[in-house]
């Protein structure tokens, strides 16, 4: 054992952890073995609840009061961190182990200048004076690719973008040349293009400094690109670990294989890429503009000018019957705004045509329009009424639109809907909180299809789900879409996924539709530059295993 421990910077051996709860101990980690050598990056991959963040907290010795540690050791350059006192750990954190969290807007103190937060690490751990620390801080920021480091040092977190903030956090983590840095989903909260830049920065800094990095992520494609070694964690146990190429090229375990197969790959189509030929137009949007914001009574009385934000500007889209249109873009690009306007949740100007009926304002959308156009939301936790059972949730559209009448017929139809989304029949009696995220999303899908819609608006319906669940939800949707012949607007930020299932792709950027092309033409030379940037930013799909 001593041989192995000296060669690796960070080593976790036989480590177990449980959390004490009202219903007894819940096992979080069992018999974890990890080791990272100098200059290596270990990608730790797992779904939510797998225990990957618990490992990070254990290494940092930052466990909640109800944590109960079992056997095993956590070694930093051969020293057991579990044997250290509080004071010793405080000296090690930031100096010998760095950490970069997921969301830079919560990991930075909003009341302190960015430079102050960076300099603090330097004065605390490297004994620099205030002045030296600020000079050194500027140099560190410059190294992370910030163009005007001196100016950035004097800014507060709210004056910097997400990407800039994450660069500051990364600079702080690298500030004391630590032996090991833990990255906990460092790019998940950032938009696609920024995430790619931060990943490139990580790779460059890691190579320059030779730091041992533990990179925690749920994104297999990303990990395959940046990690030397990979460990797959499932329900608190390391299922499989080894060199990245071996794991992704020839996974031994079923779980790993399932995870890899679930990653969306543009080359594996879920539906025929050619849209139904000669089908008539189902949905037409002509110069649609959506504005947000209304004046408060006070500002109206004071005669202040109307402060409106344009969510989407002058959009023209035409979707044929049975077509799947993918709408992609960063957060705030206006892609959800469009879906919400079509669903009758946002006021709009311009014309909206569905099956030949034209509408020019939200108030004109009648019940038969609303029945024909159904929306499914991103977050299944919020889109189901917590006080209604699944049966009540699904029977509502049936009653509202008069699709089924009488208790027996409604119950029968509800049963069919539940079966259609591949849930067991007894789920009819359950409340939403008794279902998992994926199951809730299936109920939300069943509710939309209960109305027998002509158009289904899917607003990021897979983004809050785990990779393996995402894949099954996408398949389910494509299957239902094909069976019912409904037209589908699929809104997502996941380019690989949209390339798997859409016939046509629309790209939104800052409220405008910048590009619209058939999926086969994604790599055509006449693509809009922003489309190119997006496509280049997405991590390449992993491995040769399907």
């Amino acid at each position: 054992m001593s041989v192995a421990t000296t060669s690796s910077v960070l080593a976790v051996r036989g480590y177990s952890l449980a959390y004490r709860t009202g219903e007894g101990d819940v096992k979080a980690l069992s018999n974890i073995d990890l080791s990272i050598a100098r200059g290596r990056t270990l990608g730790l991959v797992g779904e939510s609840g797998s225990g990957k963040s618990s490992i990070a907290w254990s290494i940092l010795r930052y466990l909640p009061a109800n944590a109960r540690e079992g056997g095993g050791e956590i070694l930093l350059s051969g020293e057991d961190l579990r044997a250290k006192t509080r004071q010793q750990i405080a000296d090690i954190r930031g100096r010998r182990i760095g950490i970069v969290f997921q969301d830079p807007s919560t990991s930075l103190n909003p009341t302190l200048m960015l430079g102050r937060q960076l300099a603090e690490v330097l004065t605390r751990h490297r004994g620099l004076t205030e002045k030296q620390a600020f000079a050194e801080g500027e140099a560190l920021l410059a190294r992370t690719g910030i163009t005007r480091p001196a100016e950035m040092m004097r800014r507060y977190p709210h004056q910097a973008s997400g990407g800039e903030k994450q660069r500051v956090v990364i600079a702080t983590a690298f500030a004391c040349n630590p032996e090991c840095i833990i990255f906990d989903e460092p790019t998940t909260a950032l938009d696609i293009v920024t995430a790619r830049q931060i990943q490139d920065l990580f790779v460059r800094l890691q190579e320059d400094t030779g730091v041992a990095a533990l990179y925690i992520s749920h994104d297999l494609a990303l990990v395959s690109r940046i990690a030397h070694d990979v460990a797959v964690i499932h329900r608190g146990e390391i299922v499989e670990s080894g060199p990245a190429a071996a794991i992704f090229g020839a996974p031994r375990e079923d779980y790993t294989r399932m995870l890899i197969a679930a990653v969306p790959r543009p080359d594996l189509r879920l539906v025929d890429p050619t849209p139904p030929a000669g089908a008539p137009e189902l949905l037409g949007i002509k110069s649609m503009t959506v504005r947000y914001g209304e004046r408060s009574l006070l500002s109206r009385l004071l005669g202040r000018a109307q402060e409106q934000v344009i969510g989407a500007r002058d959009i023209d889209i035409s979707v044929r019957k049975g077509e799947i249109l993918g709408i992609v873009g960063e957060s705030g690009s206006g892609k959800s705004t469009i879906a919400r306007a079509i669903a009758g949740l946002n006021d709009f100007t311009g014309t909206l045509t569905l099956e030949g009926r034209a509408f020019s304002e939200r108030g004109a959308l009648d019940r038969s329009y609303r029945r024909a156009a159904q929306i499914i939301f991103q977050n299944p936790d919020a889109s189901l009424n917590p006080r209604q059972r699944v049966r009540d949730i699904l029977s509502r559209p049936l009653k509202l639109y008069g699709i089924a009448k009488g208790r027996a017929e409604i119950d029968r139809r509800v049963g069919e809907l539940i079966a259609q989304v591949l849930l067991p029949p007894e789920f009819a009696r359950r409340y939403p909180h008794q279902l998992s995220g994926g199951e809730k999303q299936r109920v939300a899908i069943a509710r939309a299809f209960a109305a027998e819609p002509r158009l289904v608006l899917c607003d990021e319906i897979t983004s809050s789900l785990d990779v393996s669940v995402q894949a099954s939800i996408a398949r389910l949707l494509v299957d239902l879409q094909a069976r019912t012949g409904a037209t589908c607007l699929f809104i997502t930020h996941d380019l690989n996924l949209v390339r798997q299932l859409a016939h046509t792709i629309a790209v939104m950027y800052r409220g405008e539709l910048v590009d619209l092309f058939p999926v086969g033409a994604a790599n055509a030379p006449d693509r809009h530059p922003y489309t190119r940037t997006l496509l280049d930013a997405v991590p390449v799909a992993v491995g040769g295993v399907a």
Partner: protein
Amino acid sequence: MRDLLRHPTGLVGATLLAIVLSAVLFGPMLAPYDPQQFHPAMRLRGPSQAHWLGTDQFGRDILSRILHGARSTILFGLGATFAGVAAGTLIGVAAGVAGRWIDSVIMRLLDGLLAVPDLLFTLLIVTVLGGGTGHAMLAVAVAFTPGMARIARAAVLSVRTREFVQAAQARGESPIYVIGAEVLPNTMGPVIVEATIRVSFAIMLGATLGFLGLGAQPPSTEWGLMIAEARQFMFRNPWCVAAPGIAIALAALGFNLFGDALRDILDPRGRQR
């Protein structure tokens, strides 16, 4: 009901409430003496076999007076709270649902009223309308309305933007269905909890008004009035003040604990499986 048995503090609250409510229902029958009967020879005696809680300045049996007073005291609290909660919730939900300028106008008015402390507010109303149980009850109800409206509106606002409400709107549901079936059931938790806690405030406010001579009038056995009448004698027999005081405290505690338990039980998310 079974859920309540598994809720320890809720059980304590329910037990206290059961005692208080049985006093409301059967108090006059259980009372060993006539609460108004003077016994000049037995003035200000401490607890004894014959008088468990002692006697007051007129020799009246304190236990009998408390048992008789439960009805007026508790019904005052329940009635005032119910009226205040109903009015407040109605206004709050209306403001939260209407939004725009209606919301602004209603809430700014209520903010103004909220700035006046409850007790001062009730005193003002009682001074204008004159004392007596009915007016005091109305005063407490009016004093509760702005606070309840605020809570109901906040609950409505937090629920109104949730996606299941938007899903109902997108389906083309009528506003009445959206409010009644989607919004209201999810806002009732905070309202019910606040209401049960407010019953205890109402009891105490009623007792305070009684104490000040603005609520129930002698020879009523209302608990606050009992304290007021006996306060000069509290050093000769502490029980004549302590007993109604403890009765008020226990009743208030009962409503409080029960309210907390109710919130936990009413929320399906809190239930096990």
